[in-house]
């Protein structure tokens, strides 16, 4: 048994697989219905409206519906998308045992302890037929998957088959609307819509379950007499075919497997038994320690089963579905059914080569597990679990295809795993002695070599890759030396790159990439099962999980290439085509879009010319790619993908690309962006842009301070003028202070009414005539001033006047300008972030011809045009103190 998923819960009494999604419903003895995603292993939803145990549950095949029936006599129809019960069907007078949707009519069949079976129309929400006849609890009632039949099992020890053909006729006949009511009445009084076709007697105790074969006219039933019985029917009669004995207690559920010729039954004896449906012999038994089994579910399309027991449920399958295969150059050898087949990638031709021995049918899961191929000798080793691990050696005849059915007399042997290690030598693991036997093509032992660490499987590795408990190691058979080892838990598959330099070790939920000496490169963890993988020519590992095709770059970055509906096994990759084997043993080429990972790989390998051409030629975009680029330190690359101005602005700032930032800021034209632009420009020392940004935000204080430190006195005095126009006394005073213009300061103070301060200022600076003037105005209220000689506060001359400062060196990305100049990149260059004359740059970015230092813009905005034409009229000398 290959357990796929297990839950712990209250007793599970009902199960139903969804036909398309990886979902299963479990109805519990506690009254709760759980909806699980068995692939992800998560509880999606729970529905808790029944009062008491819910024994029956069933998904609708196509609608987002399911039906449940419980000990509260209620049948409820739910919509799982709306997360609620749509309506309740009332009518049964006792516990409801099972409920089931019809595969095409809008019907539900229910079985109840009230000894009846009812068929309901869930669209009209009425009971359309009551099937009476059983004289004890009806434990189960199910529609036939194709025909108009119902099978039921009852504690009255019978199994009954009902013909519901007339019921169908009635519903499909067109002119029955008027007659409907009368017919409904007829139904209630034992109408003739559903009649018992056969009564199957043979069980000695109550029958718990009966179900149809999906295609053949067979029924299987399980009863409290601990027997499973197979029945056959034709048009006229039905009869017992055989009895399967083995269960030690009441058989609770039994069904035919939908894809294999087997019967699965479970019982209160805490076991699940698998039987060969043709030979009617027991194949396998799975036991649980403490839990009695109550219910089985079979996936309608996939090879999956589920079983509910006392403390939860298990989802499992009986046989592995991965076809054994081996790739050699342009060819793929694989096993399908009982034939070895050959697939040529270049021609996509699939040929049958030779028949192989039928896997032992006295037990399950004995099919070929691995193949190993020796091209020179055209020999193939097929390993399976037969006899606790064994191999068969076939030589492919030179005349290639043998159409016959005669199985070649293959050479056989017992051994954990067998793999070719040289042209005409293969190694077989002998687990009991922990030895590797090297054999030749005659199946004779050539050499024995003991392994240093106990191994339970061997793989090809040029030498030999051995899997021990918690590690793998490479063992050289000739040197008898361990060449490398690596911690890795239970590696299931080993995939070498074509140059044998890199290896991927696939475990259940992880992938380890290592080099040929098993030096660890990276580990990837997946939440769902890893299925297969292969290396592409660029050294990218492409792998599949249950649900996706993904890639893994040499640095361990991974991502999704494509989602999958059904699992596939990658065999080989040619460029953008992935060749896969599916579970039916068909070869499928899948075309993928490799742009994303090739792009990331080029970035990683610093192949910037590739990156550049990809940026130009392909539609690579999306938020994910942008944040990847940002995260990996390539904001300047991300810049090329973005159309959104805000993102563009942010990326431009991050990569220090002032020009683009300015252009974006103009587009956005928001205060915050101008401010951030100013900060970045200041950091780079691009004072032109700083000034521009301050101007745009009308941040006069900062602007003044900027003029002060750049020594731009002309503009500073203009700033003072602006402040005056704006009636900003404080600003005016600041500017005057920066300019060292005492008269102006006094004037401002006087105008503001701060006469004592004006006096103090004038006095300190020894402007005696003004002092007198002010003293007069103060009328004796003259402040006392410390008699200290003072000097005029004149700001020091800046080190550099005008223009930009020496600019901060911004790392110019390889991509800067590279978009126009592909192939030039390769080394990172350092360059000044911009030209000293920012006005020119600005011309480039906006073409609007804003003159450097054209302060009038700011003035324009203020609506104070009178001084506009008086450029240069702001010298100190021209200022007169108001009288």
């Amino acid at each position, binding site marked *: 048994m290959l357990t796929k998923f297990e839950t712990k819960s209250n007793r599970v009494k009902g199960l139903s697989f969804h036909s398309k999604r990886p979902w299963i419903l479990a109805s519990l003895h506690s009254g709760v219905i759980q909806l699980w995603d068995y692939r992800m292993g998560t509880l999606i939803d729970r529905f808790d409206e029944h009062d008491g145990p819910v024994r029956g549950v069933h998904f609708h095949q196509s609608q987002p519906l399911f039906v449940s029936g419980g000990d509260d006599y209620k049948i409820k129809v739910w919509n799982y998308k709306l997360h609620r019960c749509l309506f309740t069907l009332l009518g049964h007078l006792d516990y409801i045992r099972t409920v089931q949707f019809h595969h095409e009519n809008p019907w539900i069949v229910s079985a109840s302890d009230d000894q009846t079976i009812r068929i309901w129309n869930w669209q009209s929400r009425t009971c359309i037929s009551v099937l009476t006849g059983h004289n004890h609890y009806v434990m189960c009632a199910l529609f036939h998957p194709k025909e108009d039949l119902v099978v039921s099992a009852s504690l009255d020890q019978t199994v009954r088959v009902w013909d519901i053909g007339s019921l169908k006729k009635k519903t499909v006949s067109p002119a029955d609307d008027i007659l409907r009511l009368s017919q409904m009445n007829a139904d209630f009084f034992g109408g003739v819509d559903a009649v018992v076709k056969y009564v199957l007697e043979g069980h000695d105790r109550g029958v718990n379950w009966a179900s149809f074969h999906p295609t053949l006219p067979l029924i299987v039933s399980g009863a409290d007499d601990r027997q499973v019985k197979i029945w056959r029917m034709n048009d006229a009669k039905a009869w017992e075919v055989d009895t399967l004995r083995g269960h030690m207690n009441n058989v609770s559920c039994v069904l035919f497997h939908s894809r294999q010729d087997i019967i699965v039954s479970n019982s209160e004896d805490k076991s699940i038994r698998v039987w060969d449906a043709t030979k009617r012999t027991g194949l396998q038994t799975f036991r649980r320690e403490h839990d009695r089994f109550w219910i089985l579910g079979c996936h309608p399309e996939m090879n999956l089963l589920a079983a509910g027991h006392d403390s939860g449920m298990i989802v499992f399958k009986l046989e592995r579905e991965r076809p054994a295969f081996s790739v050699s150059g342009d060819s793929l050898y694989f096993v399908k059914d009982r034939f070895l087949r050959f697939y040529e990638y270049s021609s996509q031709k699939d040929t049958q080569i030779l028949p192989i021995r039928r896997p032992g049918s006295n037990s399950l899961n004995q099919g070929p597990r691995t193949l190993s191929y020796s091209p020179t000798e055209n020999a193939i080793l097929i390993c399976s679990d037969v006899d606790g691990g064994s191999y068969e050696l076939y030589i492919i005849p030179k005349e290639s295809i043998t159409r016959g059915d005669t199985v070649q007399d293959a050479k056989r042997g017992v051994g954990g795993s067998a793999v070719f290690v*040289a042209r005409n030598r293969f190694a077989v693991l002998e687990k009991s002695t922990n030895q590797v036997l090297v054999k030749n093509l005659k199946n004779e032992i050539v050499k024995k*070599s003991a392994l240093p660490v106990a191994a339970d499987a061997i793989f090809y590795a*040029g030498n030999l890759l051995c899997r021990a408990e918690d590690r793998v190691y490479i063992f050289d058979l000739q040197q008898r030396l361990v060449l490398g080892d690596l911690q890795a838990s239970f590696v299931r598959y080993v995939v070498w790159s074509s140059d044998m330099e890199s290896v991927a070790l696939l475990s259940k939920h992880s992938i380890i990439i290592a080099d040929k000496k098993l030096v660890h490169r990276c580990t990837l963890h997946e939440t769902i099962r890893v299925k297969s993988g292969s290396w592409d020519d660029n050294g990218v590992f492409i792998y599949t999980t249950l649900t996706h095709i993904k890639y893994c770059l040499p640095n361990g970055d991974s991502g999704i290439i494509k989602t999958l509906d059904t699992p596939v096994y990658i065999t080989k990759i040619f460029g953008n085509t992935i060749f896969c084997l599916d579970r039916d043993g068909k070869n499928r080429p899948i075309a993928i879009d490799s742009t994303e990972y090739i792009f990331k790989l080029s970035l990683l390998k610093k192949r910037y010319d590739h990156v550049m051409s990809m940026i130009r030629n392909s539609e690579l975009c999306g938020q994910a790619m942008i944040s990847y680029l940002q995260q990996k330190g390539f904001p300047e690359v991300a810049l090329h993908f973005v159309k959104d101005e805000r993102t563009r602005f942010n990326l431009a700032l991050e990569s220090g690309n002032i020009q683009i930032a300015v252009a974006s800021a103009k587009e956005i034209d928001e205060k915050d962006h101008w401010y951030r632009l100013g900060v970045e420009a200041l950091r780079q020392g691009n004072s032109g842009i700083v000034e521009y940004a301050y101007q745009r935000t009308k941040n006069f204080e900062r602007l003044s301070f900027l003029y002060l430190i750049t020594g731009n006195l002309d503009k500073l005095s203009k700033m003072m003028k602006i402040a005056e126009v704006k009636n900003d006394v404080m600003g005016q005073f600041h500017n005057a202070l920066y300019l060292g213009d005492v008269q102006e300061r006094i004037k401002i103070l006087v105008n503001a009414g701060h006469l004592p301060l004006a006096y103090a200022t004038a006095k300190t600076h020894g402007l005696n005539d003004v002092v007198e003037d002010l003293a007069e105005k103060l009328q004796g209220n003259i402040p006392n001033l410390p008699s200290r000689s003072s000097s005029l506060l004149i700001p020091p001359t800046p080190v550099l006047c005008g223009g930009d400062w020496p600019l901060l060196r911004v790392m110019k990305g390889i991509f800067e300008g590279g978009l126009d100049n592909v192939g030039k990149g390769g080394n990172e260059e350092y360059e000044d972030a911009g030209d000293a004359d920012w006005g020119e740059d600005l011309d480039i970015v906006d073409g609007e011809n804003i003159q450097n230092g054209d302060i009038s813009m700011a003035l324009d905005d203020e609506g104070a045009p009178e001084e506009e034409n008086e450029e240069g009229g702001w010298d100190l000398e021209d200022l007169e103190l108001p009288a």
Partner: protein
Amino acid sequence: MAMAPDMLFNLRNNFYLGAYQAAINNSDVPNLSEDDAIERDCLVYRSYIALGSYQLVINEVDSSAATPLQAVKLLALYLFSPDNKESTISSIREWLGDAAIGNNPILRLIAGTIFMHEQDYHEALKYTNDGRTMELYALNVHIFLKMNRSDCAEKQLRVMQQIDEDHTLTQLATAWVNLAVGGSKVQEAYLIFQDFSEKYQMTSLILNGKAVCCMHMGNFDEAESFLLEALNKDAKDQETLANLVVCCLHLGKHSARFLSQLKLSDPEHMLVKQGLSAEESFDRAIQTVG
């Protein structure tokens, strides 16, 4: 019981396959037992001899060194000064007579090698015949083939195959015998060389082996490409040159330059000698006619 790891495997393998410089470069194996160390030194010195650095070996091996090393030194002396070979041969005979060291396999191997150079095959077999080591068996195969006794060679080969069929020397010997026997066996010999070239470093020995197989099978074009590749590795290798001469003759290309190159690098080579004797006979024939 796990057998002890074979530390000298790579070294030996390189030596057998003619990757002499690689053998020397990778000879620094740590934690060797005393016997292994001597074997290592032997292999290294024999590699130097194979590369023609006789003087180095003669200088480095002093009189206190172990018998096998002394034997290797004798080989170096023999090859270094052909003029004094009489004294070398007499001292080797003397050593072989000494009961204490006479049975040393390396000594016997060297003796076999020297007598083979002397083309005294019977004398060589006297010392190498009992075999006991893979190298001695392989030398036996070689000598038998030189004597055109492929039946005896096959017998020796079977002994080797029983001991270790996958041993490099067994494989090499198999290839030689297959080549000597010819016919369909050549394909097998080719596969052996092919295996070597896939598994190990490509050497001119392997390339020549492949080329000879190709020539036997009539693929002269392919043979030529292998030989030219070998010539790239060592432009003065006599075997390569000799094979190239043959190959070019079959392809109808000019072989004169290769032949004169061969004459320069090894005037004693069989091809040169045979060519000369053929010329002489031809001259004589003309004279008699004339």
